[in-house]
């Protein structure tokens, strides 16, 4: 355990920690380009130089292992001068096209220039070396070799994380640039990470290109809803009502991108493309805002209050007429723990039906949905584990559900997510099956073709529009935060259920998502002791039920 001093502060660290990591732990910032906490040490940008007493020259802190008795200075004149020199070299041929660069605002070059360099260039703008710009690297990435600082983060990512090795340096000296083999598109399932780890504007996102300047974006911590890994993300959105976009902005609220959020126990710094680009569904034009009722072949808009009255009335009369066994409730692993918990409570304790199923939406048919050892998992539902822990254990896919309906004993069907039936192929079969049900109701986030066979459709908010928690496959409970305002009448699923419970005279005081979670942690053993406060940003692992 070496003991060293950095800027006058003493610290003891594990063997093998680099000086930069030690400084990070102390809260001392050392500028760097090539160092990334989840990649190997390259030490080629020379930005992180520090002065170590008794060492003949400055050393690069990212690749120098802390040793016993080291005395490190990160802010001495010698270091400042060296950093300024490095910056001058890096910016020598930089095109300074910050106005049209999407990285501007979160660019390491910009930040370091302002805080460490502030020099005048010794080269005229027209004498700068020209390189290739705006090169298409597949559907997700645009490469600009002029802006590159040759830190090799992207190259190491392709080598060490995905193992695909698409990118490499070519040419020599100041003409060096990164490229794929003859600009072959990068199509690995983690390509989105490349533009996220790029410290400058060399690799930028094609989807985010020119959509919004980064300083207008609001970053909210959340969890990716695309598979059961539950990667930590930031939802970056513009929201006029939250004051993060100048008035007269294009629309009220738009999600522009997802960024990965560092969580060493879940996703480290990475995010798969499927998850990264799933934000588009939140902005989709077919988002449902109002409750809908079947009127003949069409759907008719309904007031929120009216829809609840209708729902309550129908469920109650069916329960009295045919008994609680005639009601089937299908919870969805796409929804949060709070939703599933209250849903189960309502149907178990109030309606008293034995038929509470977990509607598994079998994976979407696409080439991207394979499982791999890095992040992606076959189970495309973010909260299957949570539902099982809460007690909704009987898993049903759409085939099984259709079978149950076709037996004809079911009079009321309550779906928490329309996805299990609607939006599937074979609409005719669904239509026939749902005809046998007296009252079919579903919660839905998006308008889909299959929805028109339901008697009542309640709008619910997407994961980005609400607070809640997801439990990932390994049992880490992670918190979602509200990034957007829900569209029109849409509510959280549990809010609808809570209303129904109140109408059934169930004593329920809860109004906030947090209170529902408190109820959950009191009643379900594996969630014991958890609150929104102590889950924190990195999540909390479920208690094991072994003992």
């Amino acid at each position, binding site marked *: 355990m070496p003991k060293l001093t950095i800027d006058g502060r003493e610290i003891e660290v594990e063997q093998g920690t680099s000086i930069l990591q030690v400084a990070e732990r102390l809260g001392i910032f050392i500028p760097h380009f090539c160092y990334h906490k989840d990649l190997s040490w390259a030490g080629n940008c020379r930005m992180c130089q520090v002065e170590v007493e008794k060492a003949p020259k400055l050393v690069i802190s990212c690749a120098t292992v802390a040793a016993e008795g080291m005395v490190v200075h990160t802010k001495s004149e010698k270091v400042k001068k060296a950093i300024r020199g490095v910056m001058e070299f890096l*910016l020598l041929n930089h*095109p*300074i*096209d*910050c*106005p*049209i660069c999407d990285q*501007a605002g979160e660019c390491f070059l910009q930040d370091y220039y302002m805080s460490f*360099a*502030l*020099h*005048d*260039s010794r080269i*005229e*703008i*027209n004498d700068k070396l020209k390189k290739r*710009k*705006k090169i298409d690297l597949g559907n997700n990435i645009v490469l600009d070799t002029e802006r590159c600082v040759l830190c090799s983060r992207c190259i190491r990512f392709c080598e060490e994380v995905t193992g695909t090795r698409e990118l490499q340096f070519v040419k020599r000296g100041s003409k060096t640039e990164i490229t794929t083999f003859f600009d072959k598109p990068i199509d690995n399932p983690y390509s989105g990470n490349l533009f996220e780890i790029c410290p400058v504007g060399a690799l930028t996102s094609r989807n985010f*290109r*020119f*959509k919004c*300047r980064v*300083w*207008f974006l609001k970053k909210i911590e959340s969890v990716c809803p695309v598979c059961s890994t539950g990667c930590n993300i930031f939802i970056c959105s513009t929201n006029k009502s939250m004051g993060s976009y*100048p*008035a*007269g*902005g*294009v629309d009220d609220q738009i999600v522009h991108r997802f960024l990965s959020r560092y969580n060493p126990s879940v996703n480290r710094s990475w995010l798969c493309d499927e998850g990264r680009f799933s934000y588009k569904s939140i902005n989709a034009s077919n988002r449902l805002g109002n409750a809908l009722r079947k009127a003949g072949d069409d759907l008719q808009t309904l007031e929120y209050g009216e829809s609840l009255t209708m729902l309550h009335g129908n469920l109650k009369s069916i329960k009295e007429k045919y008994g609680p066994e005639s009601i089937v409730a299908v919870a969805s692993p796409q929804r949060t723990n709070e939703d599933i918990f209250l849903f189960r409570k309502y149907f178990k304790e109030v309606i008293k039906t034995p038929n509470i199923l977990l509607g598994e939406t079998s994976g979407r048919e696409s080439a991207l949905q394979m499982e791999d050892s890095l992040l992606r998992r076959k189970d495309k539902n973010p909260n299957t584990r949570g539902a099982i822990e809460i007690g909704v254990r009987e898993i049903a896919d759409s085939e099984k559900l259709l079978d149950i309906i076709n037996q004809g004993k079911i009079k009321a069907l309550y779906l928490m997510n329309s996805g299990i039936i609607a939006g599937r192929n074979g609409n005719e079969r669904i239509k026939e099956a749902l005809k046998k049900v007296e009252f079919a109701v579903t919660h839905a986030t998006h308008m889909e073709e299959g929805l028109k066979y339901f008697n009542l459709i309640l709008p619910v908010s997407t994961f980005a529009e609400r607070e809640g928690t997801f439990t990932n496959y390994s049992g880490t409970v992670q918190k979602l935060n509200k990034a957007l305002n829900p569209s029109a009448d849409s509510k959280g699923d549990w809010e609808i259920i809570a209303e129904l419970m109140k109408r059934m005279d169930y004593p329920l005081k809860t109004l906030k998502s947090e209170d529902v979670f408190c109820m959950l942690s009191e009643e379900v053993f594996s969630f014991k002791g958890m609150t929104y406060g102590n889950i924190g940003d990195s999540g909390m692992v479920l208690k094991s039920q072994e003992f």
Partner: protein
Amino acid sequence: MEKRISEEKAHVTAILKGLILTITSLLRNIFLGDKPTIQYPEEKRQYSERLRGVHILNKREDGSPKCVACYMCATVCPAECITIEAGESSDKSIEKYPVRFEIDMLRCVFCGLCVDACPEEAIIMSKEYECSFYSISDSVYKKEFLMNRPSLEKGELGYRPEINPNLRGKGGKFLPFSFFSKNKS
């Protein structure tokens, strides 16, 4: 008591001074015809060289907007009156251009910060200060309208940031780095 009287005396003198000024001005206006009133709109007042009037969007030689949709003006605007929507330009050397560029003239406070912020000298100000509209939708000046105001371009230009004309960027090029570094170390 004495102090109070002296104070009141001071008021009297001040009032008298004021009245003398008023009356002399009145007499001068009546008899010498030295009137500050002008017959607007037939007559117009000469304003400062740096008057901040209605905006103009500069064009390149080929008639496309000089603006690269960097959002600097929209970011700095205290009245939040500028709306920009960026798009991919077909010209590879330009890359980014404004698909939409609108200024809400009813919100604009004519502070000129957008002109200061512009790295391309794409937005400048004319000396026109009369902007009247018949409807609210007319008050939002669109890109085409802001770009094509020959009457204003021929007339004198108003407020512009004082930069060395030799440093000015030309079509698609950017200003030298030294221009951006105001705080020299």
